[in-house]
């Protein structure tokens, strides 16, 4: 998994693969996102090629932690396998997903 933050730290671009092996990297990403002042946090996924059930689980945890802090977590532009995994897991009912 590779991550690139936007200037205000409330938006991150995740690329490559996001799997169970990326727990430490994703926790660091989440910590930095939550330090931003913006209400809405955006995870940009257009370059993410592959996600597994553990990656989905970490996104759900981040969503819950954002909610507890009064923030919103938005998933943006999932493609291919990632988009299909979101559909199977009914993520459209759990997140705001930007096409």
């Amino acid at each position, binding site marked *: 998994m590779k991550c690139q933050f936007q200037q205000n730290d409330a938006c991150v671009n995740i690329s490559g693969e996001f*799997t*169970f092996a990326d*727990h*430490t990297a*994703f*926790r660091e990403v*989440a910590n930095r996102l939550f330090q931003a002042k913006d209400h809405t946090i955006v995870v940009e996924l257009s370059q993410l090629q*592959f996600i*597994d*059930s*553990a990656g*989905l*689980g*970490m996104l*759900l*945890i*981040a969503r819950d*932690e954002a909610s507890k802090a009064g923030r919103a977590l938005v998933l943006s532009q999932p493609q*291919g*396998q990632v988009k*299909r*995994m979101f559909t*199977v*897991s009914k993520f459209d009912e759990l997140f705001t997903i930007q096409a």
Partner: protein
Amino acid sequence: MAPVVDLREDCATRWDGTSEHTLAQSLAAPAIACIEVGLVVDEAASGAEDNDQNRLDLAVSIQSIYRQPIARAFVGAIGDRLGLDQELRDRILTVLHEALLNAVLHGHLRLEAGLRDTLGGVEASHELIKKRLASPDHSQSKVVIKARWSADRLLIAVHDNGIGFEPRKSRPEHRGSGRGLLILEAFCDSVSYQDCGRTVILGFEL
């Protein structure tokens, strides 16, 4: 497909366990079976019903499944033999990856999904996984992947020698291992279980 392991050591290549690259080399055609170095595969050879040209078997340790992209190397080897398109490779990779993780985390290590309700909990669960993987109890814990194919169908059986589970009782949860089973059903053309859940058979139309 019978759930028994029928790897025949006399016709298997060996994988040194070091990297995806060396695994890809060990699985490259004309290999029909591969065993990770250090694993004892003690089941008797049967396999008389198998067409040797249409099969690929792999026996790997659970430690290697945790550390190396086993599913990706295996799907690459199958995909190259069958000339599979990227969409089907992605589907197979998705479910094989999930099936291997299920076999390790739940079949062998008996990890409880409830540990992973926070990001801190996820990291703590990985420390627990590493501790259990290092236990002498798991020095011979393995998973066997067996692929068989014909002109119109591919079957991949994933067999672990762990405790098994009851698929019908493992329903999808808000977040937990149940999602992995839901993914298997969505990405395969058929899914079945044998041997008290120790073997899952993933089917794909070609």
